[in-house]
């Protein structure tokens, strides 16, 4: 755990002007097996200190690796940040006042999860899952099993008197199976296990996951006999994973206040109907439906206490995500969306846990309501645009014919314009599930949670003619 040397620095030097001072350690572990060979067996630590100073609206940032009781080293980082702010302030002469101070507070979150994890434990779990796949499904063309651990610990002091010490663990195992279709072409399906928590908590016993491996193999066999989807606009039930990435990629990015200011479609649509009234969308700070969200944020990296940010309420666009500067510009309250990935990164406006809220429909009734369409269950990546146009890769799904699930489909892609697609949402299921393995890229990477119910929409499918 990070020792508090920042307090010693502040006691001796104090702050001059608006300053955020952060010590951070990202610890990661990776174990990967490919067809039984151990291709990765690594651990890593990225630790350092950063300072961000604001002068007249000009930001100066500096960081350096290492973090210890050398107070002078911390002072040097703050001085570098201050010099950078001074250089820029001299050029741009923006003359903006400091941010309004927040009420000082001190809090700690999640530190109890910081328990030692042995690399050998990751190896044993991965090896057991890999051996099970090899023995049970010997005809696979290839198999890959890999574990990833990312534990992020941050200690933040601000010149406003905010002190926050947090620890957020994430542990995942990915299982990828590849077989061949009737034409001899490789067909692949991957699944992700785990989420928030340290590795021994999430993976107490490999045997608990054997049933999921059996299911994954069954789905892969269905996919190997699958057909290409038909191209064009189709009626599609997007299961929770896809609804979650729709919330994140297609809507979430367009209502980040920095994108709004650049000209995203979220700007002119504020206060307007952007989705069917069955759709409500929120960026959850830390707690949802009585449980901790996948990526809980209690205090952001500018020292703002984190609260949920409503984005769409009953189809109306009602909110943006902010940092301190954009909140001041828009006259809104910041709710803790300024987040940094590494110690060497400055906070950016980022999502935390975007989620479409559940409706009242049953999934079975939704499928039964489709005469000719698709039920898409898995996603593998997504991208979105300032216009709200998005795409997601879909590695698993089924035809729906006359209200019943039909043949599996091969890999495809769906796309659309978010607000147009969401206006077609006429059924929303009553059950939300979360994914907690996603990393969002926007200058920096950052872990995010995504969640949602199943939703029934009209959407463009990138099938084969």
């Amino acid at each position, binding site marked *: 755990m990070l020792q508090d040397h920042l307090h010693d620095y502040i006691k001796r030097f104090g702050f001059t002007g608006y300053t955020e001072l952060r010590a951070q350690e990202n610890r990661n572990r990776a174990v990967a097996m490919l067809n039984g060979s151990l291709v990765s067996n690594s*651990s890593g630590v990225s630790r350092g200190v950063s300072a961000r100073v604001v002068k007249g609206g000009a930001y*100066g940032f500096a960081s350096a690796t290492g973090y210890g009781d050398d107070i002078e080293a911390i002072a040097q980082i703050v001085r570098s940040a201050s010099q*950078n702010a001074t250089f820029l302030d001299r050029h*741009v002469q923006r003359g903006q006042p400091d941010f309004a101070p927040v009420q000082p507070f001190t809090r700690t979150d999640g530190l109890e999860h910081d328990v030692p994890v042995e690399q050998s434990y990751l190896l044993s779990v991965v090896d057991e899952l890999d051996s099970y796949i090899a023995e049970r499904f010997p005809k696979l063309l290839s198999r890959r099993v890999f574990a990833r651990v990312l534990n992020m610990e941050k200690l933040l002091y601000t010149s406003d008197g905010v002190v926050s010490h947090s620890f957020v663990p994430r542990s995942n195992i990915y299982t990828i199976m590849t077989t061949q279709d009737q034409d001899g072409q490789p067909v692949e399906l991957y699944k992700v296990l785990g989420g928030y928590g340290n590795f021994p908590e999430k993976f107490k016993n490999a045997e608990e996951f054997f049933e999921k491996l059996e299911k994954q193999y069954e789905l892969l066999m269905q996919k190997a006999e699958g057909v290409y989807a038909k191209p064009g606009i189709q009626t599609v039930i997007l299961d929770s994973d896809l609804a979650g990435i729709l919330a994140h990629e297609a809507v979430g990015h367009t209502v980040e206040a920095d994108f709004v200011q650049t000209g995203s479609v979220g700007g002119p649509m504020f206060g307007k109907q952007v989705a069917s009234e069955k759709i409500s969308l929120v960026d959850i700070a830390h707690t949802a439906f009585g449980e901790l969200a996948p990526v809980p944020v209690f205090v952001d990296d500018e020292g703002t206490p984190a609260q949920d940010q409503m984005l769409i309420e009953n189809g109306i666009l009602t909110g943006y995500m902010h940092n301190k500067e954009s909140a001041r510009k828009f006259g809104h309250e910041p709710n803790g969306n300024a987040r940094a990935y590494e110690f060497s990164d400055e906070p950016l406006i980022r999502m935390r846990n975007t989620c479409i809220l559940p409706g009242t429909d049953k999934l079975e009734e939704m499928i039964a309501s489709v005469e000719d369409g698709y039920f898409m269950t898995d996603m593998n*990546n997504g991208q979105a645009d300032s216009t709200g146009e998005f795409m997601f890769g879909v*590695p698993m799904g089924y035809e729906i014919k006359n209200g019943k699930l039909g043949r599996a489909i091969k*890999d495809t892609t769906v796309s659309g314009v978010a607000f147009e697609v969401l206006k077609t949402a006429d059924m929303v299921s009553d059950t939300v599930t979360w994914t907690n393995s996603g990393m969002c890229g926007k200058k920096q990477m950052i872990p995010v949670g995504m969640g949602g119910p199943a939703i029934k929409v009209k959407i463009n499918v*990138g099938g084969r003619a």
Partner: protein
Amino acid sequence: MKKAFEVKNQSILDSAELILNEIKAIGADEGETWVSRNVLTELYYELGKISMVRTVFSDKVSVKLLKDKRKGTVNLNSFDPADIKQAVADAWQAAQSAAPDEAEGIAELQENASFNSGEEKPDLDLMYQQLTDLLADTKQDFPKISFDSIGVEHTYSERLYANTNGVRLSEEQGLYQLINMFMAKDGDQTSSFNYFGTVYDDPSERVAEAGRVRRILDETQRQIVTEQIEGSFTGDLVITPGCLENFLWYVGDTYLQDGAMISGTSPWKEKLGEQVASTLVNVELVAEHPELPGTSKLSGDGYVAENMSLIERGVLKNFSLSRYGAAKTGLKRSANSGSTMVFGNGQTSLEDMISGVEKGILLGRFSGGQPSPSGDLSGVAKNSFLIENGKVTKPLSEVMIAGNLGDMLRDTVAVSQERENSGYWLLPWIRVSKVTISGK
């Protein structure tokens, strides 16, 4: 420039020697390390203003050791001897639990050498001038362009590879880079976002004078009001150089590199020396090129990288395999497993290429899912125009394309004479036939 082995920063050399000594002392059979010291200086523009100056000092260390072909790897960002000793101990502990792998190993003894290029110290005033010039030039010539962000960066790194076989290779590199994201706006209407990245040695160059930059800004400015197309058809793609780079990255991952080759999923795994693409396709990975300052002379597994042909007149000449990937597959280690690419230019002018298309798309950017192991891919055509009867007619939205990477290389029917240069790659436009294109 290649020269006799030397390391400017003594702490890099001291850290590497400490690591190798610790690796031997702990009882490992062999081991290797990368040690680097890096400084990033960034000037950042966002939301209509130059907002930040950022300086990042970072030390990076990686340790790999082997005992009875069992591997342990640890990464850290400290030169502190206590941290280094702990890292070697952690790698040793990781190796104890690992299964042995006969393909594991480290680079063989070779001539020790050093390479250097670029400047160590950034000129922050010139970077500031370059950024303000880009903003002013864009405002004057492309007034509808709105930058979301621009980063003008200088990175300096000195890095050393050392192993217990006695290999010592180092590279010192200073490089400027400009990255950005932008869109075009007219009232409440916006284009799709777009970007260009460029690396260079000289920050006094005016970025907006480059032909590639002007083309991308101009095309984006003409994409504010887009149209959709009805139905599906099989047509041609004229793929722009930046988009081609995206597809070639997919080709490497799906057909040529360690992952696809070791897993056996590469559709080209038995195709070395065979025709896999149109005879117009010539692709080379480069470690040194007079027009590409972004090349790196060292491979990730401890060798001096060389220029290497991947595909020559459509024939697969080499895979892109690391030492481990080669040992695992029984094939030859590749002289280059990097990503700095050159695609040989063709005989067709871009104008003639477009005029030969009856119906298709000028593809500016591809927003798609990861290709399947068989090379199937589909996604949205972004920043793109419709081509009808040999003419670029209208900007598009909500149009999807679907095809297969291998088929696309085989169905490449023209390669342009013109090429564009990002500093990392030198690529032409190519025309591909028989792609599924679908609108609403």
